[in-house]
């Protein structure tokens, strides 16, 4: 009943600041690259799922699949627009996957494109200025910025495991090193532990170079049936598992923008992402030990140290040793973010999770020029979006 689904093509516009390119143009360029990669054109596309946010485009709805097809191929296909903040790309992928696996369509595209506002991300219009809105409360009552939430996690990690400032900085150095070989990354200059620790302190213990900034970018993936992937004549990249999830009650994560947490014993930290990873692994019939390459949302260096532990790749606290001993570098025991991660790209919210899947596709095909993980056969993505949205995709070749 359920059909196997394959990545037919992947394409991405380089990340950066592109004031002269409208969001729609970024979307077109990413789609064109993905179509070319799949040896397909718009007439073959049977559905489009867009990862949407509120920042730009789509008559105020954010990137809008309808707007995209109206600008390039009005052909009556279903257009679906999904939210999920920074995890929207994973929700879009899951949606497109289901359209093909169910037998409803044979070729469906997933698209994310974003131009981020300058500086702090503004509150959404229409939010109430009262106690019922956490996002209002966290600003007016204490001025809690997003980095402050991550910094509170990082400081606790230092207390629990003795993580040093040098180890935190080393994670940023590794991301830059990986990005140096990736032409799509925005920040590609090598850095050093000294330079990271000399960058301005934003929220103790996190420095500027240890926190991901915002960027503009676009990425597209085209999914299809086995029949279609055979036609491309390329190495087949199959979707082994994919899942989206929400959080569990009692999760100890300091969830932006809340100002309190109800912590229960034995509930996973960042449970929305852990739940997605666990379900994707179950679907793929694999465990973390089988994964060669992990593309994960590194909003800060703390995420790079903690997330693989939360997913069960190794014991809590072991991330420091893994990083300090080069085990997480390209070709190490577990290659984490060979792309350079969010720290080297900057976050273009809705496009980010789609980019992760592009990167995994190139890694599994052996096409990740300049930052290739040797002999990668299984890749996993993991992403978190505001509002407790988690997503994970496992690809295999």
């Amino acid at each position, binding site marked *: 009943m359920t059909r196997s689904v394959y990545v037919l093509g992947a394409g991405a516009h380089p990340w950066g600041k592109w004031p002269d390119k409208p969001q729609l143009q970024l979307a077109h360029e990413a789609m064109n690259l993905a179509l070319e990669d799949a040896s397909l054109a718009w007439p073959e596309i049977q559905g489009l799922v867009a990862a949407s946010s509120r920042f730009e485009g789509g008559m105020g709805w954010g990137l809008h699949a309808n707007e995209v097809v109206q600008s390039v191929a009005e052909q009556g296909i279903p257009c679906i627009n999904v939210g999920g903040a920074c995890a929207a790309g994973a929700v879009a992928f899951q949606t497109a996957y289901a359209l093909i696996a169910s037998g409803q369509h044979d070729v469906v595209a997933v698209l994310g494109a974003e131009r981020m506002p300058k500086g702090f991300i503004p509150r959404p219009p229409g939010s109430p200025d009262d106690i019922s809105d956490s996002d209002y409360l*966290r600003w007016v009552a204490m*001025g809690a910025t997003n980095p*402050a939430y991550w910094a509170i996690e990082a400081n606790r990690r230092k207390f629990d495991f003795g993580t040093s400032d040098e180890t935190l900085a080393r994670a940023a150095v590794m991301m830059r090193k990986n990005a140096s070989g990736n032409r799509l990354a925005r920040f590609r200059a090598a850095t050093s532990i000294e330079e990271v620790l000399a960058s301005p302190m934003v929220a103790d*213990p*996190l420095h500027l170079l240890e926190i991901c900034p915002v960027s503009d970018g676009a990425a597209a993936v085209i999914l299809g049936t086995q029949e279609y992937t055979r036609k491309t004549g390329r190495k087949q990249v199959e979707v082994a598992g994919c899942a989206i999830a929400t959080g569990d009650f009692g999760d100890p994560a*300091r969830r932006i923008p809340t100002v309190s947490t109800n912590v229960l014993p034995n509930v996973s930290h960042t449970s929305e992402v852990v739940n997605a990873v666990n379900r994707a692994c179950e679907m793929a019939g694999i465990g973390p030990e089988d994964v060669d390459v992990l593309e994960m949302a590194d909003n800060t260096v703390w995420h790079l140290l903690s997330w693989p532990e939360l997913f069960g790749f190794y014991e809590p606290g072991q991330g420091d040793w893994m990083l300090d001993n080069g085990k997480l570098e390209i070709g190490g025991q577990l290659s984490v973010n060979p792309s350079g991660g969010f720290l080297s790209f900057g976050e273009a919210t809705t496009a980010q999770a789609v980019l992760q899947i592009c990167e995994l596709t190139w890694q599994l095909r052996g096409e990740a020029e300049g930052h290739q993980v040797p002999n990668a056969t299984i890749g996993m993505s993991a992403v978190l979006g505001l509002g407790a949205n988690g997503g994970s995709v496992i690809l295999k070749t």
Partner: protein
Amino acid sequence: MMAQQHASTPIVEGLFEIVAGTPKLIGSQCHGCNTIYFPQALSCRNPKCRDKSVEQTFLPHCGTLYSYTVQRYQPPPLFRMDHWSPYALGLVDLGDGLQVMGMLTGIKLDEIAIGMALKLVVEPLYSDAEIGEKLTYKFAPAERAGAA
């Protein structure tokens, strides 16, 4: 510059109250599972709880510091504070799994330590000629009473 004609009021209505001279955070407690939520909640969120109805309650006003950070950059304009300078934000364990974030006060930034005993206080955040003095809740060092 103080606005004499205005009283001091909480930064957001319904956040806290001063009861017999002691500041108290206002939350909601579930009738079914006793979970306490902050700020006041529409419903209990425990998936195993079938009652879900909540009533207003006060939170414990003493706790211990679970973690913290120092905010080195001024937050965007929705946040307002007279005489801005870097300040600490703490995550305070109030018992029974309830952790509340808030500004820390009455302690030097380099003397903050995870595990320290804290108590709830209320302090002015800013004064405005139009709307008067706005108060927010903070946590300040407390004498550790009895058990650690």
